[in-house]
C-alpha cells in the first residue's frame, strides 16, 4: 500500500514539475497581460452595438454565441435530472415526513429567524430585477436565476423546513424548468437575438433547476434514512 502511495506521489511530483515548465513556456508566448490584441472581442462589441444590446456579454451569450448557452442550460437540466436519479431513495431507504424536521440548522438564533422571513420577498425581487435588466446592465437570466433559486432556501435558515417543503412542489418546478429550457432551445437556434426573452427563459430555468438540485440534497441530508 505504501509503495502505491509512493508511486502516486512520485508521479505527482514529476507531473507537476513538468506541467509547470510547459505551462510557463506556453504562457511566455502569449501577448502580455492587459494588451490590446482582441480581434474577436472587438467584433463582438461592434455586433452587439449594431443590434442595440448595451450589455455586450449578454449579446455574446444570447445572440452571437447562443449555441454555447444552449449547451450550458442543458447541462443544468442534466444535472437536475442527475440529482433526481442519483439522490433518490433506493432499496431499503425510506423518507421521513418533512414535519418531523421543524428545526433546520440545529440552533437558529431568533434574530436570524426574524430576518429570514422578510428577506425572502426582498431577495425574490432582487432576483427578478437582475433577470429583467440583463440586456442593459450586468446580470441576466443566469445570475438572477441563481438568486431566485437560493431565495427559497432562506426559509430553511429560518428553521422552517416544512414551510420550505410546502412551497417547493417538485413536479411544478420540473415542468417550469423543462418548459423554460424547451423555449430556450427554440430561441437559441431559431430566434437568436431575443435577448430579453432569452434572459427570462434562462432565469426561470436556472432558478427551477437549482431549486430541484438543492431539494434533493436537502432530502438526503435531512429525510432519507435506512430504517433500523
Amino acid at each position, binding site marked *: 500500500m505504501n509503495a*502505491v502511495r509512493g508511486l*502516486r*506521489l512520485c*508521479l*505527482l511530483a*514529476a*507531473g*507537476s514539475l513538468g*506541467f509547470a515548465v*510547459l505551462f510557463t513556456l*506556453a*504562457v*511566455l*508566448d*502569449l*501577448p502580455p497581460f492587459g494588451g490590446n*490584441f482582441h*480581434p*474577436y*472581442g472587438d*467584433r463582438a462589441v461592434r*455586433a452587439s452595438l449594431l443590434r442595440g444590446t448595451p450589455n455586450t456579454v449578454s449579446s*455574446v451569450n444570447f*445572440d*452571437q*454565441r*447562443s*449555441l*454555447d448557452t*444552449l*449547451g*450550458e442550460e*442543458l*447541462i443544468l*437540466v*442534466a*444535472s437536475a*435530472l*442527475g440529482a*433526481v*436519479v*442519483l*439522490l433518490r431513495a*433506493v*432499496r431499503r431507504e425510506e423518507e421521513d415526513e418533512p414535519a418531523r424536521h421543524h428545526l433546520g440548522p440545529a440552533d437558529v438564533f431568533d434574530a436570524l429567524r426574524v430576518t429570514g422571513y422578510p428577506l425572502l420577498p426582498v431577495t425574490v425581487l432582487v432576483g427578478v430585477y437582475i433577470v429583467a435588466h440583463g440586456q442593459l446592465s450586468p446580470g441576466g437570466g443566469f445570475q438572477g436565476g441563481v438568486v431566485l433559486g437560493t431565495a427559497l432556501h432562506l426559509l430553511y435558515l429560518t428553521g422552517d423546513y416544512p414551510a420550505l417543503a410546502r412551497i417547493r412542489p417538485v*413536479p411544478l418546478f*420540473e*415542468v417550469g*424548468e*423543462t*418548459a423554460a*429550457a*424547451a423555449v430556450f*432551445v*427554440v430561441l*437559441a*437556434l*431559431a430566434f*437568436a*437575438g431575443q435577448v430579453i426573452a432569452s434572459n427570462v427563459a434562462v432565469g426561470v430555468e436556472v432558478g427551477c433547476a437549482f431549486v430541484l438540485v438543492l431539494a434533493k440534497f436537502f432530502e438526503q441530508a435531512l429525510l432519507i434514512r435506512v430504517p433500523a
Partner: protein
Amino acid sequence: MLSPVELAIAVPFLAAMVLAGAGRWLPRVVVDAVAMGATLAVTGLLGAVLWEAVRYGTVVVWVGGWRPHGGVSTGIPLVADPFATALALVVAVLTVAALLFSWRYFTEVQAVFHTLMLLFLGAMCAFALTGDLFDAFVFFELMSAVAYVLTGYRADEARSVHGGLNFGVVNSLAAYLSLTGIALLYGRTGELGFAAVGEQIRAAGGPDTGVRVAFALVCTGFLVKAAAVPFHFWLADAHAVAPTPVCVLFSGIMVELGVYAVARTYWTVLGGAEETTARALAVFGGTTMLLGGVMCLLQRHIKRLLAYSTVSHVGLLVTCVALARADALAGGAFYLIGHAGVKGALFVGAGALLNRFETVDEHELRGRGRDMRVTSCLFLLGGLALAGLPPGGMWLGKVLAEHAAPHGWWWLTVLGVLASGLTGGAVLRVWLRVFRGAGRRPAGQAGEREAGETAAPTPRVPWLMLAPGLLLLAGGLLVAVLLSGPEVLRGARTFTTGYAGTVLHGRPSLAHAGRLPELWTASALVKGLAGVTAALAVAALAVWGRRVPPAARARPVWSALHTLHSGHVGDYVAWLLAGIVLFTLLVIV
C-alpha cells in the same frame, strides 16, 4: 426556417425536454415511442444531410445567421462534412439500437433514462458537428455530465456510483485542461473557431512552442475521452457498471468521438502534417493497443473485458490519426464503424447474460449459456470480427491503415496482430467457457453478484433485446461491402483539406474521390486470417493451457497490472498529469 443540421440538434433536445417535464404522467409506452420517434427523426435528418454532403460537399450553417464577412464572423458554425455527419449518424443509429434494447424491459425512474439518452444523442451530434473550439468544450461537458449520470444510474449499486465518480473526476479535469488549452489558443490567435484559429496560426508563420503546448493541452482532454493509455483508467470502471444500452453508446461512439476531436483539432489548428505530433500520437496509440489488449485478456468480468478491448481498438484509431494521411483516415472510418457494430452487439450479448443470470462473471457463468443459441452466436461472431475476420469493417480498416504506413512502421503490423489476437481471443475464451462449457472450472474466489437491469429476470431469448445486437453485428461485419470505398476516401480527403476555405470563405469542398488500394488481395486476406488465428490460439491456450510455463512465470506482471488499475481516483489523476506532460513533451521537442 431551420436547416436540417440545426434540426438534428434541436429535435432530440426538445423531445428530451418534453419527456423530462411530462414523464411522470406519461405511460411507459408513450415515453418509449417519443424517444424512439425523435431518434428516428434525427437518423433521417442526418441521413439527408450526409447525402447532401457526399453529393454536393460540406454543409456549413452559421447558428443565428452570423455568416462571415471577409472571412471573419462572430458566430458559431456547424460544419457537416461527410465524416462529421457520418459520425453523428452512427450516434443516432446506435441510439436506436440502445432504445430498442431497453424497450419495455428496462427499469425506469420516471422518464429520466429516456431523457438522458436523448440529451446524450443531441450532445454527441452537436459535438461532432460544431466548428468552434469553445462550443466543442461545452458539448463535451454536456455529453460528459449525461454520461456520469447514466453510469451511476443504478445508484443502489456501490460499483456504479464508484465507477461514475472516478469517471466524473477524471473526465471533468480533462475537460478543464482542454479549456486551458483553448484559452491559450484564444490568447494567441484571438479566435475560437477551428478554421479561424488555424488561419491565424498559418498567417503567423506556423505553430511555435506556445501553440504546440496549447494544442497538446486541448488534445489531452479529448484523449482522456478516447481512453488512450495512460488516460484510460476511468473507462473500464465506467463501462463495467453502466447499464447495457448505455455501454453500447459509450464503447461504440462516445470514446471514438475523442479521437475524432483530436483529428479535427490536429488538421484545422496545426495543419495535420507535423512530425512531432505524429510521433506523439503513434507512441500513445501503440501503447494503448498493446496494454488494452493485455488488460482485456486478464479480465473475468465480461463487461470489463469488453471495455478493455475498446481501449485496445481505440489505440489503432489514434494510430490512424498519427499516420496523417487520407487513406489511413478512411481506414479509421471503416474500423470505427465496424467496431461500433461489433462492440455494440457484444455488449447486448453481455446484457442478455446479466439480465438472465444476474452476473457477468465468466467463471460463475461457465457452461450456463449452453441453451442461449443466439447470444452464443453473437459472442462467437463478435470475437472473430474483433480479431479482424474478413469482410468486417475492422479487417478492412486495419488493412488500410497498414497499407498507409510508411517504412519504419513495421511495429504497427506486429501490434495489429497482437491486439487482434488478445481482444478477439478474450471474447472467444468467454464464448468457449460460457456457451460451450469448455475447460476446467478455474480456481479463485466467487464473482460478485449484480442486480439485473430489468424488473424480472428475462426469458431465454428476449428477442426485443437481441434483435438490435444481431442487426449491429451484421452491420459491423458487412460494412466493407455496404459502404463505397471511394466515397469514404473522398470523405477523408474533404476532412483533411480545405476546411478553413469552406467554412470561412464558402469555397467548394468536394475533394477528388481517388482510389482505394485493391482490397481483396491475398496479402490482405492473410492479414485478416493471421489475426483470427492468433485469437483462436489465445483463446485455446487460455481455456485449456493453464499450465503453460510462460504465462505462469509472468504472474507477478499480471498482478502488478491489476494493482495499477486501483480504482483510486488520486492514482488516475496522477497518471493523467504525467501523461499530459509526456504527450506535450513529445509534441514540442
